[in-house]
């Protein structure tokens, strides 16, 4: 049987890749996609734990995380469209009306 560690390390790597992506990319949609990558790595962690603990709770949690991700996607993309209509860009460097 494959050990739990492999799955945990894989999800840690994916989480870090997603976090790095959020911090360094400029395009707001790509930033959102990196957030989805982070959430997926958490889902993988939950399901791995659920399998090795013999419990269903982790999988139920994943269900709800997927629902939340869908709801956030709807609202987030609507916000980006509203922003784009006024500013013709979704570059986060253009989020500069309010600074120090």
């Amino acid at each position, binding site marked *: 049987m*494959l050990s739990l*560690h*492999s*799955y945990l*390390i*894989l999800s*840690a*790597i994916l*989480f*870090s*890749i*997603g*976090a*790095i*992506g959020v*911090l*360094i*990319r*400029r*395009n707001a*949609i*790509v930033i*959102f*996609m990196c957030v*989805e*990558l982070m959430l*997926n790595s958490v*889902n*993988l962690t939950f*399901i*791995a734990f*659920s*399998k*090795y*603990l*013999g*419990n*269903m*709770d982790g*999988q*139920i949690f994943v*269900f*709800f995380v*997927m*629902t*939340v*991700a*869908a*709801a*956030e*996607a*709807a*609202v987030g993309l*609507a*916000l*980006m*469209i509203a922003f*784009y209509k006024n500013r013709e860009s979704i570059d*986060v*460097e253009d989020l500069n009306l309010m600074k120090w």
Partner: protein
Amino acid sequence: METIFFTIVAAVTVLSGIMVVTCRNPINSALSLILTFFCIATLYVTLDAPFMAAVQVLVYAGAIMVLIVFVIMLLNIRSEVGRRYTHAGIIGTVVGFLMLVLTFNFLNNSSLTGAKGLITTDVINKIGHTELIARSMFTDFLLPFEITSILLLVAIIGAVILSKKKI
């Protein structure tokens, strides 16, 4: 055999994850993300969670990514001609690597200490994964299930308010 399969799928997952972060064209990032989702769904199947794999493909790859691709097309977002990365790029990468190293350390020294439950692979095969999820969700976790209905309602209201042309 299982290890080889896992290694291949894991490698593809990580590679497409890196492609999400580094592609110039947002459509390429979106396609890499879809590939990542499919690989993760495969991993769910190896973890004895076939229903979750199906839901992953339906919801993430089927709904969320379609929405994202729609928006990319609608806003006509081209390849980034200028710089792709923010001016805080180096700090971000350093922080990310630090986080990775720390997490590695934590996870390598960890062990599985949780309370062992009763659901083994045999039970899942006998009773059926979907039924087990249903039993758990509608008895232990009924309230969170009902809260998601409110969450989806709020998301619908929000999406309409923010993007309808003339309210």
